[in-house]
């Protein structure tokens, strides 16, 4: 599959992000004329086209090749240059495939899902814009371009969460996501600026990733730690890690395809991508890495516990997303970047599949999201059922599904890599069990047991149209086979590491322990997963009224704690939001009108009074002015005579 680089025209790259942008603009200006369906088709076609180009490039991309396409020089000041230029290497290629591929499927899905929404044109405009920014993020060959994409996807996420802005809570959710992301982005910007200025102090003014990688050794370690910490703050914001995860569950207010595309498959993984892209920095900062690992593990565990108790189908998935992102950061933290990207890759498939399935369910139940009002849908929605089952197995880590390979890889790395530790592995292991538990809890609550939906809803539950089911099927396929690219040594070995080695180099080579240990660990994981599935089945899988086993166990207290998400929102509200809002209210109502306006108006009043006095010399009578003129001349002459 390796072909010479020169067979690819670099100018091809710019079209990958450009086509969605064009479609977006077209829809913006002519969308109304194209009509809902036309706009949707145009958008989907655009993303499909970029997907095709991405595939072509991926196909021709040599293992260690990098293709650059410089469009033009954006900023130029002295030796400091920022070019708008795109690059594709192995890592980017993977991301490209995920973004455009999954994006394409979800566009198709949306054609059906949003078919009845009057805001469809707007929806697809936002969606294309998002794709454009996401591609900018993954293809940009300098940090600034990456940051532009970063902010752009944030904006699109905000727009799409608040898509149904008539409902105030949705708007609130959008604001929350936006503001929380601002906090993260602030850290991110600081990190970038610090990086640039520090390098500049060494005499290298550049934002170019390749350049950075070349000169990164010039920085002193503490500085690197600080920079990476700041960058990681950005990552926590975007990828919903502790402490900035709170926005993601609320983000479910957006349409389900959005949740699938942005808040599961692509955008939220931007943080992981960023850390992987800047691995050369992070791998120089062990302190940061250990922090990342800890936070990742903590987030994974924490989110899983919350997911155990939620009753909203999408919230469960949201928390599971947070948890899976935790896994990825755990991998990053132990230096296994390729493993992180691998999990990102597989997760994109099964989590998108799960969301779309959930969407299909919600679609069928006319917007019902409470799992306690579902159940027994297997007979109604066969296709959705099968795909959902596959995806659930995948995320739970059943053998030979995608999740199995990627998650075990992460666990193994956490155990065996020099940066890892047994505690990390333990947390991840428990979390794996809980993952299986809450996923199957959801699965059983939705599809098994007796249908608890209202009568009139039950009257017309129907399988979704092919537009929605076909993507489901494809994604389900992906949820199984995507994992086979990166099997462990004791099977046919990992083609994945081979692929990413030129990027991460030694980072991919951390198999300290023996294959035996790896198999052992794998079996342990399988054991706890199986246990979890059984528990879930006995608690929720059987016929009859929905039992409250989890809560009725001895631990009611923790249940409430989980159910209320550890009261984190309330905590933030109390610690940050309220003081902040009250402070700003004081500023707005007291300080601003009193002091600021007072100053401004005072200056104005003073000027006016002064000029009221002095305007009297302006009689408007030209001869008076001429007399002034004459007096001036006399003065000059007198001075001159004095000089003589």
């Amino acid at each position: 599959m390796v072909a010479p680089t020169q067979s690819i025209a670099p100018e091809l790259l710019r079209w990958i992000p450009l086509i969605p942008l064009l479609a977006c603009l077209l829809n913006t200006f002519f969308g109304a004329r194209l009509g809902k369906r036309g706009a949707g088709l145009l958008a989907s076609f655009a993303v499909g086209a970029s997907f095709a180009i991405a595939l072509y490039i991926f196909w021709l991309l040599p293992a260690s090749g990098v293709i650059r396409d410089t469009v033009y020089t954006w900023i130029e000041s002295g030796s400091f240059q920022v070019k708008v230029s795109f690059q594709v290497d192995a890592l980017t290629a993977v991301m490209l495939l995920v973004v455009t591929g999954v994006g394409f499927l979800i566009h198709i899905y949306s054609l059906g899902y949003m078919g009845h929404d009057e805001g469809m044109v707007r929806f697809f405009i936002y969606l294309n814009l998002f794709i454009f920014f996401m591609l900018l993020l993954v293809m940009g060959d300098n940090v600034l371009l990456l940051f532009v994409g970063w902010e752009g996807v944030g904006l699109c996420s905000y727009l799409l969460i608040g898509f149904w802005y008539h409902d105030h809570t949705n708007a609130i959710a959008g604001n929350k996501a936006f503001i929380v992301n601002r906090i993260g982005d602030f850290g991110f910007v600081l990190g970038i600026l610090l990086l640039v200025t520090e390098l500049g102090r060494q005499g290298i003014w550049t934002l170019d990733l390749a350049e950075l990688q070349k000169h990164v050794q010039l920085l002193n370690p503490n500085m690197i730690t600080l920079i990476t910490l700041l960058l990681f703050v950005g990552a926590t914001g975007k990828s919903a890690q502790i402490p900035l995860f709170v926005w993601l569950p609320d983000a479910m207010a957006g349409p389900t395809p959005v949740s699938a595309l942005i808040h599961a498959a692509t955008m939220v993984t931007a943080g992981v991508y960023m850390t992987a892209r800047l691995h050369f920095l992070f791998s120089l900062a062990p302190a940061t890495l250990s922090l990342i690992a800890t936070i990742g593990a903590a987030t994974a565990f924490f989110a899983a516990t919350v997911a155990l108790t939620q009753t909203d189908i999408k919230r469960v998935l949201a928390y599971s997303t947070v948890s899976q992102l935790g896994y990825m950061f755990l991998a990053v933290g132990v230096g296994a970047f390729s493993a992180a990207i691998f999990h990102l890759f597989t997760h994109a498939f099964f989590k998108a599949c799960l969301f779309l399935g959930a969407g299909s369910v919600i679609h069928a139940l006319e917007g019902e999201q409470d799992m306690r009002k579902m159940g027994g849908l297997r007979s109604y929605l066969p296709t959705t059922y099968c795909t959902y089952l596959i995806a659930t197995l995948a995320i739970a880590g059943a053998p030979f599904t995608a999740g199995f390979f990627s998650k075990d890889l992460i666990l193994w790395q956490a155990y065996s890599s020099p940066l890892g530790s047994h505690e990390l592995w333990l947390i991840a292991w428990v979390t794996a069990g809980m993952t299986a538990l809450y996923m199957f809890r959801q699965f059983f609550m939705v599809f098994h047991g007796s249908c608890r939906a209202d009568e009139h809803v039950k009257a017309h539950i129907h399988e979704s149209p092919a537009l929605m089911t076909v993507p489901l099927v494809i994604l389900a396929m992906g949820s199984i086979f995507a994992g086979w690219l990166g099997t462990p040594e004791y099977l046919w070995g990992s083609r994945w590491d081979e692929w990413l080695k030129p990027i991460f180099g030694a980072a991919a080579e951390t198999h300290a322990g023996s294959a035996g240990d790896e198999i052992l660990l794998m079996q342990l994981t399988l054991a706890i997963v199986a246990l979890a599935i059984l528990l879930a089945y006995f608690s929720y899988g059987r016929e009859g009224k929905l039992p409250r086993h989890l809560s009725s166990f001895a631990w009611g207290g923790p249940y409430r704690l989980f159910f209320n998400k550890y009261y984190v929102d309330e905590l933030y509200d109390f610690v940050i939001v309220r003081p902040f809002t009250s402070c700003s209210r004081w500023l707005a109502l007291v300080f601003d009108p009193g002091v600021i306006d007072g100053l401004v108006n005072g200056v104005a009043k003073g000027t006016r009074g002064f000029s009221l006095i002095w305007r009297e010399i302006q009689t408007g009578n030209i001869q008076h002015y001429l007399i002034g003129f004459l007096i001036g001349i006399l003065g000059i002459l007198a001075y001159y005579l004095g000089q003589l």
Partner: protein
Amino acid sequence: MVPLNYYLILGAVVFAIGVLGVIVRRDLIVVLMSIELMLNAVNLTFIAFARFLGSMAGQVAVFFVMAVAAAEAVIGLAIIISVFRHRQTLDPQEMQLLKW
């Protein structure tokens, strides 16, 4: 032969008289004429210098002053006409709208 200073003094005196007319007369036309008078006083000094320094530059300068003076007079009179049409007066003291 008449020394240069004599012409200069004559020019200065005529110039000062013109200034007087400009600042005290309350008829725009006379004001304009006084300005012409000032210009001519300057012309006189130009010519005197040209004669005593033996260069034509002075006379050329006077030539240009004449051109400019003609332009100035024409425009000034046009303005006076249009002002008079609106306000039926030529008293500059009456034309004080352009203040504050």
